């Protein structure tokens, strides 16, 4: 009986989810030593070993299994189901979760981080479990519970180092934002309840409601899921949260949790038989805006993790654009475009879940080694940590969408969508292509900056000069992810095989039976020959260099006699040129000391990119509201006779109202 059940892959997946949730429990009980953390990592690996094959099996055979859990909360039956869409979104979870757990062994070791390790390990497992539950839940209340557990675990992970003011601030903003998002979701599920009479999710394409209601549902979903996915301008919590969390947590937050927002959006859209055209237009516009703004702001960052966080906004923008394109195409009956848009979005979901954790891991290793998050204080790390540097290079190239890595494959699909629309009657959608190209260009700026400033050149501080290579437990997950990134770029059909079932689940059966305009083999040809050609040239040049007389010396300083490491181009100066061009989008605060006199004293110039939406809009609004509130708060002035006046006035008013 039990054995039979365990042969069902869906049951196995559920077991894996439970295992993930419990992974931190032994650590809570075992008070000291690294055993708890090791057990947790082992459990994470095991859960992923159970889950991933099962998920691939489920996707491959396009199976849907549903279960009804036994609960007695007054929200109707607690249904959970694993359809291809859920299975698809579970893959990133079970990919990044064990990778991060493994990484944590070296990055957040129990021995050194005694104060926070146990809670971090526990909530890390709980976060993965909650995210998985969100994805499989088919009951609005269960969904919300899992959603909030996810958000709160994220919070506790985020404030692991709460002794620091910045971490606390980031945590508060995150918590408030996710709570507001959950409020929007409450509206969403309540409205769904109003429409269907139950908390269970309606079957795909079965929700028939009036236009007003569907607008409300869509807007609530966009508010709730969009803020989780970090769409501009709902992204305010994201940069500081991802920057201040421990890096393996940032990897999970950025690589997976944001995708859960995308999942929610897709799930809600799937309820509607005919999503209106404007949803697609709105999502496309929002996606492109997020992508462009996100990457422009990223290029100005000087905190390595904040840069990665803004790049997450960019990538989520690209995903959202894909969804928007799909909706536009579905509303206008263009099957090829629908396929390309949705496939690009889903493919990019996978891709981003591969290279973003890779980059966060490498950022973690860098921070671990150099002891700072500021790019301008790093430099020269490639010499001291060559393996990390190599893997980070793979990540950086992949995230810029350059061949031969996976980012290129998914962006290619989106480009094809845009270009194919150029031939249609109203080719406005094709205008997305230049925007995407601009985004790609700025991404190159950002990641050349990140990689070049952090890893290359000479060390700018003692900390980065004393850095050391990361241990195997940190390198192994990175290596795996880099390999996957390359595989996705060379053989996109492998990833598309996972994408297609989910796509069919969303867009209806047969939607994936579209012939791709470009044969996937071309990716392998192009990428492969690129790799071979590069390697050949590299070896050739190396050979030539060996054959000719060679010398070594300091970098040519253009005649300057005493070059110093601090004279190198810094990250801030690298981004400043583009920043000056995009100054309307990217604001930064530059504070400089005075320079006066013949022999001016030493002074400092500091440069801080601003969180424009947060600091220019949200915080001022809150403080204006605060002033208004302070005005009302005078009502409670301590004079008891006036308090009695309130009672009397209430009595009179109510009497007048009633009569």
């Amino acid at each position: 009986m039990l054995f039979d059940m365990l042969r069902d892959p869906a049951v196995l997946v559920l077991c894996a989810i439970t295992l993930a949730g419990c992974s931190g429990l032994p650590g809570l009980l075992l008070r000291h030593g690294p055993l708890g953390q090791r057990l947790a990592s082992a459990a994470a690996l095991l859960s992923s070993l159970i889950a991933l094959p099962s998920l691939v099996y489920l996707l491959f055979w396009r199976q849907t299994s549903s279960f009804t859990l036994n609960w007695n909360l007054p929200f109707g039956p607690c249904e959970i189901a694993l359809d291809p869409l859920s299975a698809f979104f579970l893959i990133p979870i079970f990919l990044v979760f064990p990778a991060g757990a493994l990484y944590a062994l070296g990055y957040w070791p129990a021995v050194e981080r005694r104060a926070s390790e146990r809670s971090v390990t526990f909530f890390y497992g709980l976060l993965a479990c909650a995210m998985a539950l969100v994805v499989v839940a088919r009951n609005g209340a269960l969904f919300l519970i899992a959603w909030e557990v996810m958000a709160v675990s994220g919070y506790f992970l985020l404030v692991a180092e709460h002794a620091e003011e910045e971490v606390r601030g980031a945590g508060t903003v995150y918590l408030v934002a996710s709570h507001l998002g959950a409020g929007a979701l409450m509206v969403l599920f309540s409205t769904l309840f109003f429409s269907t009479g139950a908390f269970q999710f309606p079957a795909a394409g079965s929700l028939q409601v009036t236009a007003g209601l569907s607008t409300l549902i869509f807007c609530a979903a966009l508010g709730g899921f969009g803020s989780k996915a970090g769409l501009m301008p709902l992204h305010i919590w994201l940069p500081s949260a991802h920057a201040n969390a421990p890096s393996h947590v940032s990897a999970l937050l950025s690589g997976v949790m944001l995708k859960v927002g995308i999942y929610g959006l897709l799930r809600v859209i799937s309820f509607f038989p005919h999503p209106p055209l404007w949803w697609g237009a709105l999502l496309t516009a929002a996606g492109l805006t997020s992508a462009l703004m996100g990457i422009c702001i990223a290029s100005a960052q000087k905190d390595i993790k904040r840069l990665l966080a803004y790049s997450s906004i960019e990538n989520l923008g690209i995903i959202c654009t894909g969804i928007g394109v799909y909706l536009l195409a579905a509303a206008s009956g263009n099957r090829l475009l629908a396929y390309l848009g949705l496939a690009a979005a889903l493919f990019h979901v996978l891709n981003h879940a591969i290279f973003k954790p890779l980059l966060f891991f490498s950022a973690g290793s860098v921070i671990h080694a150099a002891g700072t998050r500021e790019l301008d204080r790093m430099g020269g790390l490639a010499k001291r940590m060559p393996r990390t540097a190599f893997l980070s290079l793979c990540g950086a190239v992949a995230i810029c969408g350059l061949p031969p890595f996976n980012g290129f494959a998914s962006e290619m699909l989106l480009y094809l969508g845009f270009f194919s629309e150029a031939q249609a009657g109203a080719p406005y959608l094709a205008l997305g292509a230049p925007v995407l190209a601009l985004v790609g260009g700025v991404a190159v700026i950002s990641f050349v900056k990140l990689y070049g400033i952090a890893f290359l050149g000479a060390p700018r501080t003692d900390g980065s000069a004393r850095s050391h290579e990361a241990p195997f437990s940190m390198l192994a997950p990175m290596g795996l992810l880099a390999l996957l990134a390359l595989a996705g770029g060379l053989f996109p059909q492998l990833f598309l095989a996972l994408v297609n079932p989910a796509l069919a689940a969303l867009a209806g059966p047969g939607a994936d039976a579209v012939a791709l305009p470009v044969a996937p083999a071309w990716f392998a040809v192009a990428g492969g020959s690129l790799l071979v050609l590069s390697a050949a040239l590299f070896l050739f040049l190396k050979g030539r260099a060996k054959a000719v007389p060679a010398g070594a010396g300091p970098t040519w300083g253009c005649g300057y006699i005493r070059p110093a490491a601090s004279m190198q181009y810094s990250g801030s100066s690298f981004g400043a040129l583009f920043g000056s061009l995009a100054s309307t989008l990217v604001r930064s605060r530059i504070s400089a000391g005075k320079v006066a006199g013949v022999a001016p004293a030493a002074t400092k110039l500091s440069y801080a990119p601003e969180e424009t939406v947060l600091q220019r809009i949200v915080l001022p609004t809150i403080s204006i509201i605060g002033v208004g509130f302070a005005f009302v708060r005078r009502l409670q002035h301590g004079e008891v006779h006036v308090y009695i006046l309130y009672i009397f006035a209430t009595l009179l008013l109510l009497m007048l109202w009633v009569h």
Partner: protein
Amino acid sequence: MNSLADQFLVLCLLLNFAVLGTSRLNFSVRSVALQGVLLGVLPALVHPFSWHLAFIVVSIVLVKGALIPFLIIRAIKRAEIEREFQPFIGYIPSLVLGALFTTLAFIFAAKLPLAPEHSGLLVVPASLATLMCGFLVLMGRRKAISQVLGYLLMENGIFLFGLLLADAMPVMVEAGALLDLLVGIFVMGIVINHISREFSSIDTSRLSALREE
């Protein structure tokens, strides 16, 4: 008989104004006490005699007319205050507002029908007016003692209404009213003692440390 009761009620209303219009605490206390005594006697006028009634009348007259005034005047003496200075609502405005509220009470009472056996009585308007004057004192005075007096006025108003129910209701409600009065005033008295010990004054405007900045 009913006309006599009505005259008593009018007297009660006038006493309200006496309390509203004076700054001397002793006078206020006596006015409230007198009102209490009048109220105590009223049931005897409206309802036929019974031992139950007699008990109520006597106990009310004792409590409202003697015990409470005694307690309060003792508190006044101990705290050495005689007058209410700088009331929150001045005396003239208090009187005007009192008149306004009394009118309101009459208008309001006209909308509420009485049972046939009570028709023609001024009980409801008098009760509402006394209640509102009590509120007015509570809202307009700063001294804790004045506020207790305001509370007493309110209680008088409520008790006045209770008269309508005196023969119909079980003894419990009246006992409740009495209990409330007694215990309420008693506890307030204790607290006032503590206040005067703590602040060496019973000016409640000093009692405004607890507030939102």
